[in-house]
Each structure stands twice: as C-alpha cells, then as structure tokens.
C-alpha cells in the first residue's frame, strides 16, 4: 500500500512583473516561504523537483539549491508546458509514494516579462527565400494564419466555439461571464497580478484578440513562483501537532496525455485528457464533483474555463452555459471556481501555475484564505493543461 501524501507547507509570490529579479530570486522566495510554512529547513528535504519552462535546460533546481542550501539531494528539472509546476509537484509525490523519500520540495517558477500574448510567434520570423518542404507536413513556408491559427488565443477560442457548436445556450456572452467572474474574484486576492473588477459590458467591448476572446478574456503573461513541501503520512505523524493540524491530504494526483481522438491533429484536444484525468482523480480520491467545495482550473482563456466545467463534471453534460448563467461558479455559488482570480486575473507565470493552484486550495482547506476564504472548505480540486498535451488533476482534502 503506497504511503499517504500530505502538503505540509505551501507558498506563492505575488504574481506580476519583476524586472529587477531573476528566476532564482523568485524561486528562492517561494521555496523558503514554503519551508517556513512547514517549519522545516532545506536540510530536512530529501528530493527537489523544479519546473521552469523557459529555462528548462538550465538546471534551475541545482542553481536554486546553490542559493538556499546545497545538501546533495536528488534534483529533477521538469518541463510540461503549462502543466510544468504540477509535474514538479507530482514528481515529488511519486517519490514519496515509491518510498524513496518521505519529505520533498516542489517549486514552479517562471519569468516571462512582457512576452506578449502570442509568445515567440509575436516577434516575427525571417522569410525563407526559396520554397523547400520541411518537417513532417512538408511545409514550404510558415503556415500560421494561412492554414488557420495555431497560436494560443485562437486555439482556445476554437475549443470554446466547438463546445458552442455541440451544445445549446453557449455564446460570446457566456464566455465573457467567466472573465467577469474571475476578475471580480481577484479583488480579494492580494497575490493576484491584477485586482480589478470589470463589468460584463467592459469585458465584451474590450479589444478583440481572437473571437470570442477579448483582451480581458486572455490571461496575462508575468513572473512569479510557487512552492510546496510534501511529506508522507508516516513522516507527518512524527512531526509537531501544529504541522499535523495544518496538513492537507493529497487524495488524488493524476496525469494524462492525449489519447487518440478524431480531430486531435487538426486542433489540440483539451477535452478528452481532462475528462480522463478527472475520472481517475475522482475514483482515486473517492469523491465526486458534488463533494467539491472549490475548484482552481486552467482558465488560460475564458473559453477554456467554460468547457472545463463540463470536462470536470461540475455541470450537467452540455450544461456549461446554464452553469455560468446561474452563477454556479461564483464564490457564493454551488461550486466556486477560481476564487483566486484564476489565470485570467491572478496571472499565469507558466511554471508556477500548477503549484500556485495547490497553494490556493491548501489555504482554503486550512481556513487561512483570509478575505476570500470559502467557509468550511474540506475538498478542493486543481487542474492544469499544458498544451500538446499534459493534464494534471490533484484533489486535496482535510
């Protein structure tokens, strides 16, 4: 029987832009805060996993230890697109379940600066002078914008519009309501990159990026870090009662990739692997969607959040439009979703996101979420997707 796994410390930096800091400053700030939160030191830690997508090949984990304590422990530097942070966390969880470690540290960090909505594609590319087939599709030139769009705003817009095609009661307004909600939620989160409320009309009349996503329906780029200290059940029993009291159980930790699906090659399919991960996580944790007190899901774009209501089973099948229309995912609704402000307003420093959502749920389950506390929260779910694709779902309980 594998060990129980517990979160005993968690932290995140405020997300934003830190031109005067580097990745190590941000990672160290989060790591040291998580160690303090668990009343442990780096000397107690037996495994470190670090996710930093933009510096995936730069040994960020070891460089972090050189800043906070070089103890010779195993270090895993991981990358999984926007699921990078959750992958780091899951690496530590697996090590504990395997019995190789009984306490470990996971850190997610990213410094994106003002990368722009389109990432590197926004910088333009030099033109090739003579056509010559390249790659597995034999493309003779850049096909972005010629054979449809593969950039994030358009891909997630199309994912949302496909849901609108297949289901009733979903349109521009339902997608916009998601952003209205998350911006409103963020006003209670001092660690959010933005803390500004917008009316539905302001959301809908903001600059159109890729219909139906306006600027206020796209997450910002930014910098930040998050960290978690994870321990086995056996280790936890040997720790001070105050740590035990505040510990949050990892009731499920699941990762999936894309099973084959029709259309998956035309456009990344963010639905199938999320549904698969959710089903496995509910089974592993022995809970269902009705048991969830809060959910932090991957709202990189407003269209994404809406379809994940259905993918995670939060609403009736096909009922995501009705779910947002009746206010169910608002903080005073039946299943609060993204009470942190979500990626849309809290921000999305890629590597940090999949641990920052665990930090958020942990705070609520401990009753330490201050102004934005969901009263009496006992079960929470986190979800991230790294396009390409990797999906991680964690269910936390206390």
């Amino acid at each position, binding site marked *: 029987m594998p060990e129980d796994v517990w979160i005993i410390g968690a932290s995140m930096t405020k997300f934003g832009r830190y031109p005067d800091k580097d990745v190590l400053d941000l990672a160290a700030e989060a790591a040291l805060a998580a160690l303090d939160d668990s009343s442990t030191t780096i000397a107690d830690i037996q495994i470190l996993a670090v996710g930093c997508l933009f510096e995936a090949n730069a040994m960020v984990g070891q460089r972090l230890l050189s800043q906070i304590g070089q103890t010779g422990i195993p270090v895993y530097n991981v990358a999984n697109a926007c699921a990078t942070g959750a992958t780091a966390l899951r690496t530590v969880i697996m090590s504990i379940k395997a019995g190789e470690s009984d306490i470990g540290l996971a850190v997610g960090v990213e410094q994106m600066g003002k990368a722009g*909505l*389109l990432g590197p*594609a*926004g*910088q*333009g*590319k030099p033109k*090739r*002078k*003579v*056509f010559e*087939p390249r790659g*597995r*599709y*034999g*493309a*003779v*030139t850049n*096909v*972005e*914008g*010629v*054979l*449809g*769009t*593969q*950039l994030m*705003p*358009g891909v997630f*817009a*199309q*994912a949302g*519009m*496909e849901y*609108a*095609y297949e289901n009733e009661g979903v349109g*521009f307004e339902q997608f916009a309501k998601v952003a209205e909600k998350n911006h409103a939620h963020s006003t209670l989160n001092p660690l959010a990159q933005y803390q500004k409320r917008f009316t539905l009309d302001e959301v809908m009349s903001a*600059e*159109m*990026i*890729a*219909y*139906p*996503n306006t600027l206020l329906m796209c997450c910002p780029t930014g910098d930040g870090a998050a960290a978690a200290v994870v321990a086995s059940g056996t280790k936890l029993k040997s720790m001070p009662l105050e740590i035990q009291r505040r510990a949050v159980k990892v009731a499920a930790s699941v990762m999936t990739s894309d099973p*084959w699906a*029709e*259309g998956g*090659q*035309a*456009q990344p399919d963010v639905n199938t692997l999320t549904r698969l991960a959710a089903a496995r996580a509910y089974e592993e944790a022995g809970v269902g969607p009705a048991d969830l007190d809060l959910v932090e899901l991957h709202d990189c774009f407003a269209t994404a959040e809406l379809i994940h209501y259905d993918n995670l089973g939060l609403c009736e099948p096909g009922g995501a439009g009705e779910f947002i229309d009746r206010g169910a995912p608002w903080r005073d609704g039946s299943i609060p979703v993204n009470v942190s402000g979500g990626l849309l307003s809290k921000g999305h420093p890629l590597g940090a996101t999949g641990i920052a959502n665990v930090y958020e749920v942990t705070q609520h389950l401990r009753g330490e979420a201050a102004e934005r506390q969901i009263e009496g929260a006992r079960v929470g779910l986190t979800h991230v997707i790294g396009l390409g694709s990797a999906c991680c779902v964690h269910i936390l309980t206390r």
Partner: protein
Amino acid sequence: MAKQVPIVDYLVLGDPPRLEVSTCTACGAGFFDRRIRCGRCGGRDFERRVVPATGIVRTFTIVHRAAPGTPTPYVSAVVELDDGTRVKANLLGVEPDPKAITLGMKVELATFVAETDDEGTEAVAFGFRPLNGGKGFSDA
C-alpha cells in the same frame, strides 16, 4: 504560368486540387503528417487516401491580433469533412464577422496562392469557402 508547389504535402495540386491523408490500413485512422506507427492502434502500414472536398464548420475564431506580417482579421476554422476527417484552415470569401459565419455551415475546398519565393515559385495554400456561393447558412 509560374511554377507552383503545395504549401504542405497533404495538399495535392491537380484538377481539382485535393487533400490526402496517410491512412492506417488496420484501423482506418487518417493522418496529415508522416507517422511511424498509427497513433490510434499501433498499426504499421499506411496508404494514401483522398479525403472529401466538402464538409461543415465545426468551430471557428476570428483572429484580430496575429504575428507580424499576417493580415488581420481573418477566420480560422476546423472543418469536418464528409468522411469525418477534421482539418484546420482559413475560411475564404466570408466577412470576418461572427454574424456572417454559422457553426455547421457547409463549405468546400478552395486554393489560393499564399506566397511567392525569390525564384518566382508560388506556394499554393488551401482554405474553405461557403458552398452555394457566399453567405453562411445553418445546416439545421
């Protein structure tokens, strides 16, 4: 007439131009790119198959902010062809306005010259235009 090449190798120029997939002979799954084994069933053998030139719009977006050099706005869509194959491309000959595009509208394959290189060779790309001439209509 200028020399023409297809922008990707799954577009086959001819009269009429067509899209081809590499089809798994074991399970029938179709792939636009070169595969080593079938992603669906692990099958080893593939054969070329022409896919239908007509289908419906499953989803679309109207892109307003794009990489430098890409004219905006334009309409990107995923089209479900009559045999179920799905392909991404731009919609041609429609206003970039949500009111002009209906999910489920019928479309057909069309080609256009996307770019010319320094030797005067034209790269021919494909898109889909509404069937029956212009305006979108619901397939319901």
